[in-house]
């Protein structure tokens, strides 16, 4: 039986864990006291580096390394943007952290701010997280009152502040540079890299951007040590991950496991297997932006390297399972519509390419597809991938290319037989 390894979710089931007194009674803010009392900022960075902690927002970039890129001698303010925009379809872990254990994320933010010398923490929270925003604001208020935030934190001489900033319904604003543009009061358009945010980020000041789950793991890394964290998982994917399982399984939910467990074990042991006694047809290992893997590849170990070798990505940890009855073409249309409508419009390949792909899907589902459409789809993919301004374009082609190659017969059946998908409602863009 596959075991859960609860680290970020260690207070799962503890009543009122979002309250400061409950969090403290369970060892909360001990890691912050430790770094302020016993560790130099560089030692904190070194510890996080040694732990092997990788970013949980999608790219898996080593957190300590990212922190070390910020110039230490930079005069003036430096910032932390905590990415709580959680928009990748299939992902629902950051919302859990924010609503159930916001102090663990805040403690991680303060430790990061101390290590890198950041004067202000902006928690960029997606607009629909009404309850989440209230929870973080309440937690921040408690932390200010207790002296964990503000000037001269716990008498250490270190000061940092925290502000919750709301998004307003845009997936692209989860992309780190678009997030910064939005924070500055603009349309959520990405910025060119380099300069990287670590040297020139929000308001052109050095800025660290990390995901909620990444930051919420930091207190445990400090309390229990880099060696403890590095001892979990695999050689290259160290530690644990909150895996969000959704779609056609008996028990959808968040399961925090060590990297390296077989994906089939997550689906069958933890999420109760495919629902209604059906067979699995395929799955997205890391959200709608990652290529679909077929049923035959369900035993792949859950770590960055193994999933990459299998032809996809671990992404944000969103495991979306679909069963043998799934209409692949319609599912791909749902996702392609999402990318077409959420493209920020800044660059032509993405703005136009995603819409062309959507038009082709609509044509096929309306019974008017042409066999050449499949080559046309693949050719748009080629002209979109790695040619868009930011990785949004690469994300948009994943489902198209992977499903056309894995389930081509289903596309051909629609086209050959002029099969019409009967819509229950007409999607409208707002």
């Amino acid at each position, binding site marked *: 039986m596959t075991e859960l390894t609860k680290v970020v979710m260690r207070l799962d089931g503890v009543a009122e864990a979002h309250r400061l007194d409950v969090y403290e009674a369970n060892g909360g803010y001990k890691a912050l006291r430790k770094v302020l009392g016993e560790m130099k900022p560089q030692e904190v960075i070194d510890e996080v580096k040694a732990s092997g902690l990788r970013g949980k927002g999608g790219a898996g970039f080593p957190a300590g390394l990212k922190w070390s890129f910020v110039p230490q001698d930079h005069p003036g303010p430096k910032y932390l943007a905590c990415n709580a925009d959680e928009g990748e379809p299939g*992902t629902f872990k950051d919302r859990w952290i924010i609503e159930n254990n916001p102090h663990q994320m805040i403690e991680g933010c303060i430790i990061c701010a101390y290590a890198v010398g950041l004067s202000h923490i902006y928690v960029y929270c997606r*607009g629909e997280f009404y309850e989440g925003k209230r929870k973080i604001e309440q937690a921040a208020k408690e932390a200010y009152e207790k002296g964990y935030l503000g000037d001269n934190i716990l008498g250490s001489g270190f000061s940092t502040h925290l502000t919750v900033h709301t998004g307003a319904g845009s997936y692209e604003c989860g992309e780190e540079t678009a997030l910064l543009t939005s924070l500055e*009061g603009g*349309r959520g358009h990405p910025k060119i890299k380099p300069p990287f945010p670590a040297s020139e980020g929000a308001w052109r000041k050095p800025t660290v951007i990390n995901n909620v789950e990444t930051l919420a793991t930091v207190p445990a890394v400090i309390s229990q040590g880099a060696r403890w964290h590095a001892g979990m998982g695999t050689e290259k994917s160290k530690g644990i991950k909150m895996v969000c399982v959704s779609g056609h399984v008996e028990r959808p939910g968040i399961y925090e496991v060590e990297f390296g467990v077989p994906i089939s074990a997550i689906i069958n042991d933890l999420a109760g297997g495919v629902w209604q006694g059906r067979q699995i047809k395929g799955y997205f290992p890391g959200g709608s932006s990652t290529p679909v893997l077929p049923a035959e590849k369900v035993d792949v170990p859950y770590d960055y390297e193994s999933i990459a070798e299998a032809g996809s990505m671990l992404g944000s940890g969103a495991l*979306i399972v679909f069963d043998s009855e799934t209409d692949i073409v319609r599912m791909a249309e749902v996702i392609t519509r999402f990318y077409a409508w959420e493209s920020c419009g800044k660059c032509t390949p993405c703005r136009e390419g995603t819409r062309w792909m959507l038009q082709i899907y609509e044509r096929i589902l309306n019974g008017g597809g042409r066999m050449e459409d499949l080559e046309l789809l693949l050719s748009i993919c080629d002209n979109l991938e790695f040619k868009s301004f930011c990785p949004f374009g690469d994300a948009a082609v994943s489902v198209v290319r992977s499903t056309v190659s894995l389930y081509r017969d289903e596309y051909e059946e629609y086209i050959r037989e002029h099969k019409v998908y009967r819509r229950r409602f007409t999607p409208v863009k707002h």
Partner: protein
Amino acid sequence: MTVSVQLHPELRKWVEERLSRYPTRRSLLVPTLIQAQKYHDYASPGLMQAVADLLQMPASEVMSVASFYTLIAKHPVGKHIIQVCHNVSCYLRGCDEVIARLEERLGCKVGETTEDGKFTLITVECLAACGSAPVMMVDEKLYENVRPDQIGRILAEAN
């Protein structure tokens, strides 16, 4: 020229309390427009003009930014906003039936407002609640594992 509306004093206060937390005034633009919808019906041209004056930036830029974000209503909407997720995990677990039932019960289509002005129905992208799909929100309240036969009760609750 657009005539600006009088901003609600609570909104002004809300903005002024937060200005010191940012290096520039315009950083507060998106949060201000979101907050404004608590006091004003929607982000009308007059409201955007007033926000532009408050944040000391051109009204054209306020409108450009507002037009980017779906949670900022640029036209009048109903008293309650219904947001139903139509993304992949919710699709896999039957959101199409939920949306069809909503259209039927409300007597309006996705993107429209009921004739009595009570509800605006829109579909939205993944609400980060896929573990309890299909999901929908009525204003700030999230409903999980929604079945079509629950729609009547959910609507009655909001009324």
